[in-house]
């Protein structure tokens, strides 16, 4: 069964701490994404990557950075966590290609619920 695995299901951190959220996919997908989900706001794109060592900002990149050293792994980093970063973080991946082929269907991980105190 194909999978996107997020390393931590629940995390509690303190303001100012550095936070790493890890995501690994076993589907050989080129594209990987980090979303943030908050009630009433839907899913908002933080960062994405189309290839190893490549990253692009999404809609809300402030306060976040990412790393993609290997194709299967995409990490989200909060350099100095703040209380307004308390949220559910969802990693997703997809194949590159045209939508007609179904290549852009997103497979999500189970999510990482982060609480910053």
């Amino acid at each position: 069964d194909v999978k996107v695995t997020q390393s931590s299901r629940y995390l509690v951190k303190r303001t100012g701490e550095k936070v790493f959220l890890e995501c690994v996919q076993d589907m050989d997908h080129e594209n990987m994404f980090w979303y943030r989900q908050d009630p009433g706001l839907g899913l908002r794109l933080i960062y994405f990557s189309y290839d190893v060592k490549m990253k692009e900002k999404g809609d809300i990149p402030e306060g976040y950075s990412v790393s993609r050293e290997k194709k299967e792994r995409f990490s989200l980093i909060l350099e100095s966590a703040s209380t307004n970063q308390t949220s559910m973080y969802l990693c997703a991946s997809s194949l590159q290609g045209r939508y007609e082929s179904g290549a852009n269907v997103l497979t999500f991980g189970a999510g990482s619920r982060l609480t910053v105190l």
Partner: protein
Amino acid sequence: GQQVMQIPQYQHVQEGEDFTTYCNSSTTLSNIQWYKQRPGGHPVFLIQLVKSGEVKKQKRLTFQFGEAKKNSSLHITATQTTDVGTYFCAGPRTGNQFYFGTGTSLTVIP
């Protein structure tokens, strides 16, 4: 920039009643996707619509893509408790990225 708006935000129905959620875009979409997120779960892909006026069915779920490819709907006939969750539409942006609607949270009252 292009965004996808979704209504209603919440819907409570009695089991057996029908349910519909609507998705609207200010610009023409090349395709639209629908996802379902169960309570405590993660979004799971349901379907992709590509053609103008397209209608697709999955058992009690009917998905429509508008003629102008600017709107879409998901209709559930005779809801069951297993339909509980949040339904998201997603419209494409540049590359293989998507704008997600804010979602419709469906509660089914037994």
